């Protein structure tokens, strides 16, 4: 589904990703952990097409297409979704209006019929049952005045509604209380399917108790330096990232 090969990316004149490779197959859940400033959010931004993130080397294929030459909205329509580490407040844009505009824009881009406001509200109500988001938040401006946890839930709610093929969750667990964490994890698990893949960026192995990953990777210095199964997260929790530096050799070298 997603093949990242030797990806180099530069932000504000600084090289951040330095030869990152990753293969995500349909239905898989990959967790990415790594120290602050390692380039985890940069990876999410590059994959979703944010301006200012310049790819200097390497390639990204998504379902056989060159993802890097698509506009952000084209990537969304193709099925890529990024749950932001810091969702943006957009005063003056009603949340429901925004959701329908996004939903219909994607359908239109895929040549599917758009939903009218009645049909769309019906869908929203169904998704709300699954996602436990206060309906009141839908009548407000996008993320405006939302608490940190509400913003994260809103991201997952959008994901549930847009049903992407590949969802990248950037620290969606940060700032969530224990109940919210479980609800978000349930929301993600409800969407897991043999066709849908996830990249879950997190600092805490606790999230991985709820969203059980197929693979765990360590991103440090702009590369994947260690990959393993669930147990890697436990080792990291116990020993910290210094352990990777001592113990592991760069993943690129062994591949």
């Amino acid at each position: 589904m997603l093949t990242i090969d030797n990806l180099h990316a530069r932000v504000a004149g600084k090289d951040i990703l330095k030869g990152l490779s990753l293969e995500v197959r349909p239905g898989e859940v990959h967790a990415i952990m790594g120290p602050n400033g390692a380039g985890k959010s940069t990876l999410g931004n590059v994959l979703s097409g944010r301006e200012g993130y310049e790819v200097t080397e390497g390639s990204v294929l998504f379902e056989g297409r060159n993802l890097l030459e698509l506009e952000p909205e084209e990537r969304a329509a193709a099925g890529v979704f990024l749950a932001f580490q810091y969702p943006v407040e957009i005063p003056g844009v009603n949340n429901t209006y925004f959701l329908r505009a996004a939903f219909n824009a994607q359908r239109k881009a895929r040549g599917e019929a758009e939903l009218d406001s009645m049909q769309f509200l019906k869908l929203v109500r169904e998704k709300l049952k699954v996602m436990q988001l206060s309906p009141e938040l839908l009548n407000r401006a996008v993320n405006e005045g939302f608490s940190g946890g509400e913003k994260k839930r809103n991201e997952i709610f959008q994901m549930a509604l847009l049903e992407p093929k590949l969802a990248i969750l950037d620290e969606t667990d940060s700032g969530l209380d224990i109940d919210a964490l479980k609800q978000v994890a349930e929301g993600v698990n409800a969407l897991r399917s043999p066709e849908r893949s996830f990249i879950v960026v997190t600092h805490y192995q606790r999230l991985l108790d709820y969203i059980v990953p197929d693979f765990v990777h360590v991103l440090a210095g702009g590369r994947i330096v260690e990959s393993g199964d669930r147990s890697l997260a436990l080792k990291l929790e116990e020993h910290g990232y210094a352990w990777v530096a001592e113990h592991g050799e760069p993943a690129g070298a062994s591949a």
Partner: protein
Amino acid sequence: MSQPARTPFVAALAGAPLPASGIAWLDEARRGNLEAFVAAGLPDTRVEAWKYTALRALAQRGFAAGDAQAASRPIDPALLALPGAGAPALVFVNGVFRQDLSLPDALPAGVSLQPLSGVLERDPEPLRFALARYYREAGDAFARLNAAFAGDGVVLRVEAGVRVAAPLRLVFVGAGAEGDLAWHVRNLVELGEDAELTLVEQHLGAGEQGHLGTQLGDFALHAGAKLHHAVLQQAGTGSSLFRRSHYRLDARAQAHLHALELGGALARHDLCAELVGDGAAFHTHGAFLPNGRQHMDTQLAIHHRAHDTVSSSTWRGVAGGRGRGVFRGAIVVAAGADGSDATLANKNLLLSPQAEIDTKPELEIYADEVKAAHGATVGQLDERALFYLRSRGIPGAQAHALLTAAFARVPFESLSHEALRNHVEQLLLAQLPG
């Protein structure tokens, strides 16, 4: 002493016949104002109030005085429709009242609404104070022209204690003619004690034209009166429109103005409010959206002259293309106007590198215990918000339009009339690229 050569603008109007009224004081005031206009011509940019709005190009154009065919110009009724806001009460075409297009709903008792032309024929005396004025300031060219030539307009009075719920709609249309012409309207609105009124004022364009329009409006609010005034300026794209509004608020009177400036090649609005009674409140909310080569200039001057007076001004500017916006917001708190509270905020958005907005908040305070805050900014769309929308599948152009509309919409969130608010929303979305 040698006079400067007359510009084509002045020359075309200098010799034009004034409307004949048969009223000695009015004829005299008209002559006097025309003489003053001819002597001074148009202000140049050395006049502070015209610093950012150059009239050089306008001065080189000649406009015929008035439209002899105004009464018979065909107007598509669809142009005059405004969903949810009733039929237009009075319609003026090129400055002339059009009975055939005006459909005043049965006016409630205590409301008198007449075209100025009719009042001048029947009972002009009560208007003498307002119409026999001379305009003496350096920048008064358009007020002088208006005082000299305006033969029509709106005369509206709401008796004390009368509250009118349904909005009253006034429509001013600039309609294509054989050549470019100058038209003028003079409006006089008075709300008696504790009266309440919602007024919708629209400026529209019909057909290709490059007319000059001027409007002079006086709004007198007696103690406790409440005026909701919405202005939708959609003048024809080639036209020049100069409006000047004066509001006078007695004790506890309240005015809420919502103004949307969309039309005209050159549109200027001078708005002066005098809060002369204790506890008077004046709230303005507006947006100007110059695009293409449009030039829009809004000049606010709010004078706090009594105790505990309140004013707030929320204005947004959005300039695209080679559009130019000018905003001046002056608040003057006079000596003795203790306890006044004044806020003014003007935020602006530039959508293109050639667009320009000049904004200037001014605050002069001569009283004690005054609360005042003002600020102005000019910026671009938030790149992070743009990316957020696009990352959800919304195409770039649509995301731009959405964010811009959201920005420009802010002043109208307080517009209580729902149909009007929706209409404004539609106008904003239609105006913006994408």
